[in-house]
């Protein structure tokens, strides 16, 4: 149980559609993050995201239920088109958003200078994981919170928090990025599109699945077979970092298995490490995922103070996980 001097951690939840935003707010999210329907955010998938009008309505809905809305404008602006990213910042401010999550220096500069009342969070895409880098963003743009990359351990988070004057937010559930975000070019290598510039890792227009007569499923990206799953076995997305490769005479998952993050067991350690906010990944997921995961983690975070055991609620989330598997990821630094 947390000691009384540890603040209750904020639960930051994803929303890819207005319906998902409502589901997150109703399930007990403290804050909901979402993005516009264009390349300014790192979940630029077909049919997903918000128009300016939808965002304004979503902000009203969330605020009425005590939840904040954070707008992810976290891809890197492209030369000659920075106006698209600047407009996104201005639209977020006009919609009444509580903060913008950004990574690009031009976007941060525009927000800091043109929307000085808009709170700034540093996206995980900025891959800021040293005190020096974080202090630069805080001092230059007035960033109030940094979302840490999913490649740092709990002791590293605690050490960082001792040296910086801004809040930290960490991922606790959902898709697991095992690369240093913002710097990964694997998707770009295979498809020409990346989360950094176009807002999509393993873009769906380059993804296809083929199941043969035996029920064996081949998952392909850009024409490359990334993985295959026998009949009845749990499947995963064809992301290169979780694909099977042959190297040095061996075949297997070179970087990571198809697996999702679940840091439930580490919530108390993260609280002790000084973490301000816990983030759930999954803006591309459905309302059933949003409602289920947010409710379970609401119970888990509240349980740190109340002592109520959330283990059964969290255990029920396993079927939401890629490949049917979960890991504490680099927080425990057990992977190869």
């Amino acid at each position: 149980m947390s000691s009384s001097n540890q603040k209750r951690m904020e639960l930051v939840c994803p929303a890819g559609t207005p319906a998902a935003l409502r589901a997150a707010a109703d399930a007990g999210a403290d804050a909901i993050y979402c993005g516009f329907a264009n390349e300014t955010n790192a979940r630029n998938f077909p049919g997903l995201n918000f128009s300016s009008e939808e965002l304004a309505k979503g902000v009203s809905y969330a605020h009425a239920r005590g939840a904040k809305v954070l707008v992810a404008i976290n891809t890197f602006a492209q030369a000659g088109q920075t106006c698209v990213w600047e407009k996104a910042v201005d639209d977020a401010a006009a919609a009444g958003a509580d903060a913008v999550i950004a990574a690009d220096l031009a976007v941060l500069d525009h927000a800091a200078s043109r929307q000085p009342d808009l709170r700034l969070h540093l996206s995980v895409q900025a891959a800021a994981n040293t005190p020096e880098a974080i202090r630069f963003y805080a001092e230059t743009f007035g960033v109030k919170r940094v979302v840490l990359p999913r490649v740092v351990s709990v002791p590293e988070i605690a050490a960082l928090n001792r040296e910086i004057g801004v809040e930290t937010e960490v991922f606790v559930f959902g898709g697991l990025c095992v690369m240093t975000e913002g710097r990964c070019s694997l998707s770009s290598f295979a498809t020409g599109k990346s989360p950094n510039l176009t807002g999509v890792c393993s873009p769906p227009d380059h993804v296809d699945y083929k199941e043969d007569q035996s029920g064996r499923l081949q998952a392909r990206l850009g024409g490359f077979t990334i993985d295959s799953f026998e009949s009845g076995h749990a499947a995963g997305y064809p992301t290169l970092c979780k694909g099977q490769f042959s190297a040095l005479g061996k075949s297997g998952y070179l970087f990571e298995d198809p697996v999702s993050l679940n840091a439930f067991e580490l919530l108390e350690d993260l609280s002790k490490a000084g973490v301000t906010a816990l983030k759930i990944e999954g803006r591309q997921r459905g309302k059933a995922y949003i409602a289920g995961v947010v409710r379970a983690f609401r119970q888990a975070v509240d349980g740190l103070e109340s002592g109520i055991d959330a283990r059964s609620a969290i255990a029920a989330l396993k079927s939401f996980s890629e490949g049917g598997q979960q890991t504490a990821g680099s927080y425990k630094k057990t992977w190869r």
Partner: protein
Amino acid sequence: MSKPSSAFSLPPVVSTLIAPFPKTPMEAVLSAFTKRLVARRPELLRRLGAVVQVPIAIVPDDMPHAFLLSLDETKSNVSICEKDAIADAKAVIRAPFLVLLGLLDGTYDGDALFFTRDLRIEGKTEYVLALRNTLEEAELSPGEFFGLSGRSAGWVNDVSGRLLDKARWFAARSAGKAGSMEPRH
């Protein structure tokens, strides 16, 4: 492509009973209500983006036929065809019927069903995603689909919800998983 029955699958007798039903009247009814829905909710077409006018096949594993869906501002169409007559489809979604209904009303998460292999997709993945995300946002209830509102919509939703719960329970029991009525998400 065969798919072993799951806790979501209806027993084969349901398919046998449905098979003789005439397809033409069902197509006419489904197409008419789909056109009306699109006319009432034009924002859905905006969310669909590139999927407008793209034929997508929806193949319930435990039903005798497939549905070929094409959404358009004025010419939306649902046709019912044999499962091996869906070559025109740019994408194919296969799952037990109750899973497909659960995706329509947001009961289930599509990715989770894909991970557990209860849902399979072929063809253009981006079309499937756009359709899935649009349906998520549509928050379709039977009342909404049939253009009802107020108390009549509430009554239809209530009755259909109870029927669906019973069907899910029945499917789970038939699959030898009595008591396991909860969705696997």
